[in-house]
């Protein structure tokens, strides 16, 4: 009688002649494998020592070693925005109010929810409004998604203002941070524009009339709008002025919807991202967070001598 095929192969591989029974040999092999597996699994008890972990994080995060704490920041693409160490008083909530960071976090939230919303939205006069209804009533968690996008946008306007207010109160715009303050002002305007361009997209009465009112002001731009000072003298009409350029037409219609969509989803976020990169970069280059700094005294202020 022939042996089963696989057993024959095993024999050939191990080169042994079968002394113990088939079952006995299998048990032996399994026992050895089990011991080895237990031995190896012991090493996985510390995940930080695994090849996988080390390949991702590059450094060990041994808490007691100050060098590792620094490396945790320096060797991480997201965290290297931070310095390794900061002013011990700057981590107090009441100094910064955390508003700049929260604003950035809201931008991330808005990007995330915005991308998801884009899956369900067509920037076309025919279906835009229906898409919103679909989103609110049929898409799983669609209503939550839209609500979150809207409220995060409003919250971002508020946190931007409060961030600016804090920077003024702490005098953080002063030397050498003057330019970064200007970048911040641009970001404030971009935040408002982002929010405003999003207002039209549901294509409902609220957005339509808000944008109508808003863009009507562009009509009156001096030298660029047909109703503004010197507009008529420069040959501007409703069909070639700045408002026409913004709306892609003389009324808020299909082209305006498409333009608002593209500005909202691509144009302004792109520009804002660039300004944000500069804003964050400059915080570091200008010496990190401004304080809480030791107070200066009036008596120590130098006054230029009168010539």
């Amino acid at each position, binding site marked *: 009688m022939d042996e089963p095929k696989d057993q024959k192969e095993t024999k050939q591989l191990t080169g042994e002649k079968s002394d113990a029974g088939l079952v006995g040999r299998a048990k032996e092999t399994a026992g050895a494998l089990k011991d080895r597996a237990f031995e190896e699994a012991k090493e996985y008890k510390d995940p930080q020592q695994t090849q996988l972990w080390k390949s991702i994080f590059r450094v060990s995060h041994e808490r007691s070693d100050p060098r590792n704490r620094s490396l945790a920041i320096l060797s991480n693409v997201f965290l290297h925005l931070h310095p390794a160490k900061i002013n011990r008083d700057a981590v107090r909530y009441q100094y910064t109010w955390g508003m700049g960071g929260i604003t950035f976090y809201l931008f991330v939230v808005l990007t995330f929810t915005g991308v998801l919303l884009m899956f369900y939205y067509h920037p076309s006069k025919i279906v835009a409004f229906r898409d919103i209804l679909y989103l609110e009533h049929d898409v799983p968690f669609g209503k939550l998604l*839209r609500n979150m996008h809207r409220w995060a946008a409003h919250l971002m306007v508020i946190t931007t203002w409060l961030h600016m207010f804090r920077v003024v109160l702490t005098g953080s715009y*002063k030397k050498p941070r003057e330019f970064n303050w200007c970048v911040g002002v641009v970001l404030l305007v971009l935040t408002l524009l982002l929010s405003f361009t999003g207002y039209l997209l549901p294509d409902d009465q609220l957005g*339509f009339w808000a944008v109508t009112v808003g863009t009507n002001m562009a009509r009156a731009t001096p030298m660029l709008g047909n109703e503004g000072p010197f507009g008529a003298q420069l040959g501007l009409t409703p069909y070639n002025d700045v408002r026409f350029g913004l709306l892609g037409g003389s009324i808020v219609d299909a082209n305006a919807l498409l333009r608002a969509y593209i500005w909202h989803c691509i144009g302004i976020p792109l520009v804002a991202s660039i300004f944000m990169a500069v804003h964050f970069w400059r915080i570091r280059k200008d010496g990190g967070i401004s304080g809480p700094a030791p107070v200066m005294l009036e008596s120590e202020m130098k006054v230029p001598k009168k010539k």
Partner: protein
Amino acid sequence: MDNPKPKSRRNKLIGLIVVVVLLGLFVYSVADWHQLWKILSAPDNVPIVAMLFLMPFFTWLGIRQAAANDRLIGELESDPKLAKTHHRKVEPWRPGWAKELHVWPYLVRIEFLAAVIVTVVLYIWSITLNAPLEEPSNPNLTMNPSKAPWYFLGLQEMLVYFDPWIAGVVMPSIIMIGLMVFPYVDSNPLGNGYYTIRQRRFAVAMFGWGFLMWILLIFIGTFIRGPGWIWFWPGQTWDHNTVVFDRNRDLHEIVATIPGLGFIGSNWVAKMIFGAIVVGGFYVIGALFFHWLMKRGQFRFSYLVSPKKLRQWATVSDEFELKLLSKTSILQYMTFQFFAVSVLLAMPVKLFLRHVFTIKYVWVTPWFNI
């Protein structure tokens, strides 16, 4: 903390009484609670309602820290010996303490916590309140009132006081550029990186005034302007049939009624020259006002009941403020004056002229009106 002194307790009591009386008057004056609730609870108005609480809170938070720093500055100012050895912060510090902390984990964990809290707040907000969605857009059916989003209602409210090219284009541009030049015209080296009012009275007051005005305009635009952009006090019903008999006149029309000055309204050249003089005069007087204001020392409310002290405050320049002024270059000074008079003063003055004297334009020309 020290026990509150009797005087400060008395002040607190007076403050409380004032607040209660004002609230009582407001409640008494509300005729239409439903209307008020409709405006307050409109989901899109939630942010500005929240702002009404957030602004005072963060102002208080800032001022409290400024007061603590100012006390320390006062102490060190009067004790040069202490100033040399003191670590110069109100935050506790002992020799041997490291001046810096590791960002990992001491900052990163706070950021993580903040992100979690914001996310939770957003979830709760989004579950409880729905984003508004009106009927499909319809160019043939005008919304009344048709309002911009809340953060632009300040601009929309400005349309009442200025022509669209000023309110919608020039003013926003000036505000933006004015904000950008702010660090460059502030020649004060003190107060860099810590809360203080004592050392930066004027700068903080100017920004605070602008910010407050912005919030107030938004407040008016949100809560007070009803159908037809008519002024309805909070608690008044927004009646779509309300008719307002405004008799808005231009300044030259009023002046021309004075015997002997009738020629001012006679032709467009006279009107234009008259308006130019008025606006020019406004800039001169406004600049003089700011020049006076920037030299003032600390103002105390007790001056209001003591004319002698008030007079002294108004006439004697503060030494420190004079020092700051001498550090300011002419370009910085002129730039500041331009933005201050054009926005910080022109806006409230025009608002006042419109509401109290029903004056429409002060400068009328064939090309533009101001």
